[in-house]
């Protein structure tokens, strides 16, 4: 007999890990900067936040320092790709490799060491709803934060002045620049916001979700985030939906263990992402679809002020 409440609740926990970095990356890509370094930022800040939380015995300092590291690392990408106008793809790959290397050094002291991690927070009234309350409102506070961030990110991106500026910078930076928009500043802000959300995702991974640190613990899930941004059609609401779909793939592998060997099941998230991307790629390759969806036109095109 499968415990459905446990299953759905672990889907929520897995999906949050995808959702936080995806929201950040949506902002970065909407402003026209493709940051392929998500994996590196997530894994480095997972290690860093765990190490800091272990040495200070304070979880929130750990979470904050994970966020900070994510911001700093994405700052490197921003400097290389915005200030120095280099290829964003290569810089992002470099960031991933750098972050993976950094994670080994940052986390070397805390491999296999246990600490009390983020507690599940009980929200009065909401947590008491039968079934739904047990699934959605019996989690660490970062999960609730991700619920709130979805509408906030959507509102800012689509309903405020700053959101319109971000999208116009990603669409046509020359035109925005001629209108007096500080293109580079806006792009910097978006990339660093993306980095901080990735850092938060990393902190959530080691302190709220899996509750340990080991080398290579992300298992390439940072790359799934980049795929997710596309699946979400660069829209925070889509990110919510997409994260829960991929979270389901991620959790399902535990429920098929008696039918298939474990290593085959471990491939499931990666293989399903590739298949998903294949379908999405066919849809998105039509220019008409792209313009309806509003994919940022100047994505990954360096902007050189003339």
């Amino acid at each position, binding site marked *: 007999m499968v415990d459905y409440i446990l299953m759905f609740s672990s889907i929520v926990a897995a999906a949050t890990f995808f959702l936080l970095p995806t929201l950040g990356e949506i902002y970065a890509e909407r402003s026209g900067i493709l940051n392929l370094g998500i994996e590196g930022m997530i894994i480095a800040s997972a290690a860093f936040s765990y190490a800091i939380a272990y040495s200070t015995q304070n979880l929130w300092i750990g979470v904050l320092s994970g966020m900070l590291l994510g911001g700093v690392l994405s700052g490197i990408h921003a400097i*290389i790709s915005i200030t120095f106008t280099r290829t964003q793809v290569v810089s992002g*790959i470099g*960031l991933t490799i*750098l*972050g993976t290397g950094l994670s*080994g*050094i940052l986390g070397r002291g805390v491999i296999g060491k246990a600490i009390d991690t983020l507690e599940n927070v009980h929200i009065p009234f909401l947590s008491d709803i039968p079934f739904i309350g047990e699934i959605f409102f019996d989690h660490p506070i970062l999960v609730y934060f991700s619920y709130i961030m979805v509408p906030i990110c959507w509102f800012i991106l689509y309903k405020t002045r700053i959101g319109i500026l971000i999208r116009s910078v990603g669409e046509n930076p020359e035109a925005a620049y001629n209108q007096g928009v500080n293109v580079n500043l806006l792009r910097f802000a978006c990339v660093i916001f993306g980095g901080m959300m990735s850092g938060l995702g990393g902190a959530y991974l080691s302190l709220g979700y899996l509750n340990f640190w080991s080398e290579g613990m992300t298992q390439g899930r940072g790359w799934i985030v*980049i795929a997710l941004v596309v699946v979400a059609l660069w829209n925070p609401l889509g990110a919510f939906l997409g994260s829960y779909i991929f979270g389901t793939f991620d959790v399902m592998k535990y429920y098929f263990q008696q039918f298939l060997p474990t*290593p085959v099941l471990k491939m499931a998230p990666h293989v399903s992402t590739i298949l998903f991307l294949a379908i999405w790629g066919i849809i*998105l390759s039509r220019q008409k679809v792209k313009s309806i969806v509003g994919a940022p036109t100047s994505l990954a095109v360096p902007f050189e002020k003339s």
Partner: protein
Amino acid sequence: MRILNHRLFFQKRIEPITGINAILFRIAFLLFGLVVAGLIFLLNGVNPIITYIDMIRVNLLLIPNTIARFIPLLAIGLGLAIPFKARVDNIGAEGQYIIGMLTATGTAFLFPDLPGIILIPLMFVNAFILGAIWAIPVVLFRAKGGFQGADVVVSFLLVFPALYLMEWLVSDLWRDPETGFTYSSLLPENAQLPKIPGTPIYISIFLILAITLLVYYFLFRNIDGIPKLKLGYEINVMGKNPLAGRIAGMSFFRVILITMIFSGGMAAIAGVGEVAGNALRLGVKSQGYGYTGIAVAYLGGLNPLGIIVSALFFAALKVGGLALTGIPATVLQLFSGIIIFFVLLSEFFFRFTIKMRRES
């Protein structure tokens, strides 16, 4: 940027830096990178100067080992440089390399009775084919992916199925019956690559060096600004201006298909060498050469001759890693990442300089 009443800004050089100056420039930026890595060591309570001296000393003691490490890095780096040049970002060399290891092991276990002179070439051919097949999805996504970075994401995601396939085979089908540990039994003797006597250097070094020089001769060496083969020219055009190439009637799909087949195949050949020449059995973990290969290709300036030098450099880093105490093995990736950033920066300064102007 403003410092006091001086303004810093970038100015385009009248002539970009090329030739020998570019190489010196690259080396200077490489040294900057080593300094930055040293700072990170320092923050971790490790003395960088002593560390670097130790790393050099280990390398001098173990020159044959450095050359043995150099073989897979050269193969992967060269295999990556060609698609990189055509703007196909294959970062999944690690997966193709693992597939190469699997194929070599599988071939050796399937035909254990074949004489070595047939079996070993068969292992290489099979690995090349399967490695290339593993790289094909990247081509499809690059050509039809519909969004930026599709090839990057897919090539990376393909690493994991390969990795878990290896894990599965090693823990189930090919598990060593004698010890019961999660690695395969030793390869049969006729499947092991011959070595240069007294050293760990196995013979695929000759194959890979020959391929490197051929690639340089046919695809990269410019005669009057044009490579010897048409393909080399097409790769250049596709990398620099795909639109112009398309108007001139070049098939983008054909170019990336060929480059990726070569790329996947080379990574797989590196895997054959690793399992049949070095480890002699399949383990459950991979060495991560596929990721280092990316840095090898960029540090070598995407040029076969440069890649020979940069592969030697990274092999030396890898062997020098034996001297590191108190620093985990991922340090090689830290170096790779930092070096990629500094190579990118050096390319910027090929074309620009920083100028300072006084402002009132």
